[in-house]
């Protein structure tokens, strides 16, 4: 017999209470996994897509919380091109439109000569006519989920967009978005002459030092804009930060509930096992060993619930991102940092919940404990 057998025996001894506690912790950790996973998935999808399409720095208007509502005069591109160290500039208008089917779709408008078109590898059809107002290329993932092919028609709020081609892109956002000539999208959104962001490639931009130099130079010259590195674009976005803060706060409430439930279970267990603790004391178990027993039991509950929560959370995330409103915006992939975060949460619940019950067990008078019925 090992210590772990004693712990398992204790947990199995009260199956309903153990099961309820595990389910509650699973719900708390599952909620945490989903909420933080959505944020991390968005971050991975966005940053990864920017890096893969070759962006070094992304510029957008300062003080705008929602990136998509920002409006920059498209003529800024020519000015930026002239700045020392800037290799290329690509303007982009981005927005989310809702199709009549109910699906929310990311739509991106690029000038006909933009280098961004270079990442579009056609699977079928052709690229849109640069002067067209209603032709789009659909990313492969989006085409599959909308079940549409080249030659098909999409209907955003009463208008019509013709699918010129279906393309495969090397990034998740591109693969799940519509791409069309900038002028066409400006007309569609009634935002003539406006863009949302500017993508820049800069000299030495593949290295941190070169990137920082260019960023500092551009920030000084254009203080009205925020220049963010592609690798950290999501983290520097105000809306994303706000959303992440909200999701952490909501997760925290769930986690505190989970902790309280484990705490309550362990406290009741210590009260119920008063006599047993007295016996352990009488046969020579040290206070440290008794504390270890209680803490490990608390950790076992937390770990069982936590692992189930992580598994359910990932499953939930996978199902959630299949929803038409979210598809293509979020990339769900397990990561070491997420696992470390989740492990820390499980550990915190287990240790936090077991501390006071263990202390109570330690403080039990062995003689009174042995008299307990």
């Amino acid at each position, binding site marked *: 017999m090992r*210590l772990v057998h004693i712990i398992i*025996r204790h947990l199995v001894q009260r199956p309903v209470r153990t099961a309820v506690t595990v389910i509650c912790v699973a719900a708390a950790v599952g909620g945490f996994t989903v909420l933080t996973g959505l944020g991390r998935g968005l971050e991975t999808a966005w940053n990864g897509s920017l890096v893969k399409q070759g962006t070094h720095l992304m510029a957008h208007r300062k003080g705008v919380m929602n990136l998509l509502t920002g409006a920059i005069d498209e003529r800024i591109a020519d000015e930026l091109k002239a700045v020392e160290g800037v290799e290329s500039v690509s303007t982009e208008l981005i927005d989310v439109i809702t199709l009549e089917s109910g699906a929310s779709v990311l739509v991106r408008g690029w000038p006909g000569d933009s280098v961004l078109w270079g990442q579009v590898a056609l699977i079928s059809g052709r690229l849109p006519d640069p002067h067209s107002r209603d032709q789009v290329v659909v990313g492969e993932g989006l085409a599959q989920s909308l079940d549409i092919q080249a030659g098909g028609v999409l209907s955003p709020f009463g208008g019509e967009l013709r699918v010129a081609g279906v393309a495969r892109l090397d990034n998740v956002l591109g693969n799940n978005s519509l791409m069309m000539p900038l002028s066409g999208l400006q007309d569609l959104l009634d935002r003539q002459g406006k863009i949302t962001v500017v993508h820049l490639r800069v000299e030495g931009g593949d290295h941190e030092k070169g990137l920082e130099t260019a960023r500092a130079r551009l920030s000084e010259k254009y203080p009205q804009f925020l220049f963010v590195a592609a690798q950290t674009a999501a983290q520097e976005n105000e809306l994303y930060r706000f959303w992440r803060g909200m999701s952490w706060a909501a997760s925290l409430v769930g986690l505190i509930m989970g902790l309280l439930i484990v705490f309550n279970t362990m406290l009741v267990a210590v009260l119920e096992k008063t006599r047993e603790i007295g016996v352990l004391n*009488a046969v*020579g178990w040290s*206070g440290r*060993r008794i504390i270890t027993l209680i803490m490990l039991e608390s950790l076992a509950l937390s770990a069982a619930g936590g692992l189930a929560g992580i598994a359910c959370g990932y499953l939930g995330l996978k199902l959630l991102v299949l929803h038409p409103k979210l598809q293509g915006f979020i990339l769900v992939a397990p990561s070491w940092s997420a696992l470390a975060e989740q492990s820390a949460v499980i550990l915190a619940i287990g240790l936090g919940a077991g501390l006071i019950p263990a202390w109570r067990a330690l403080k039990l008078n062995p*003689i009174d404990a042995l008299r307990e019925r």
Partner: protein
Amino acid sequence: MQQSATRKDSSSCFSSLSRHAIEFSSVSRLYPAGSVTALEDITLGVRRGEFLAVVGPSGSGKTTLLNLMSGLDQPTQGSVLINGAEPESAVKWAWLRARAIGFVFQSFQLLPAFTALENVQIPMFGVVKSRAQRLDAAHDLLHRVGLDAKRHRYPDELSSGEKQRVAIARSLANSPSILLADEPTGNLDSRSSEAVMHLLQDLSRAKRLTLVVVTHNHAIARDADRVVELFDGRIASLTEKGGL
């Protein structure tokens, strides 16, 4: 008269510390709630390897004496020495209970969720490192108390006599030098009582254990090397074998 004989005997015992497994020096135990004096000014030496019976009416302080001997309780005055040294902390007492002091309770105090074999292994945690050694030792102890065949039974599947035999096996788990038994036959019928006491005495003789038994049973006390009689928390008499 008897009291003075006791004091004389105790003081002579203290002249040779190495002879004593347990030494009480002017020990008192006062319970603050209600200001009850459970034991008052007890000076007593328990010789190594002897069988000491503690008798007396209910409330005379027998169990308190045993609790103080095991460190489950602490004196409000005086000192308790085990094998010539005074354990100065709860940690030290726990260490002693794990290695040097075995305890048998009247109500067995077996853990109901664990089998006889597992109950015997419980005290070995932290003392016997190897799982296989713990298992072998538990098997051996249950064999010695005649419960080989019932080692996988849970306490509620055993008779009272069998439970007490498991408790005895558990008390011997870490080969203690002192065995304390608090009315070990108190919950047993006369046949089981006799069997349990024979077992306790045989095992303690075989291992040269110091055996202290609290009992109401005069037949048990008759077998003891010495008998301490408590009355109202004081030693009323201390009698050598044959004196009863």
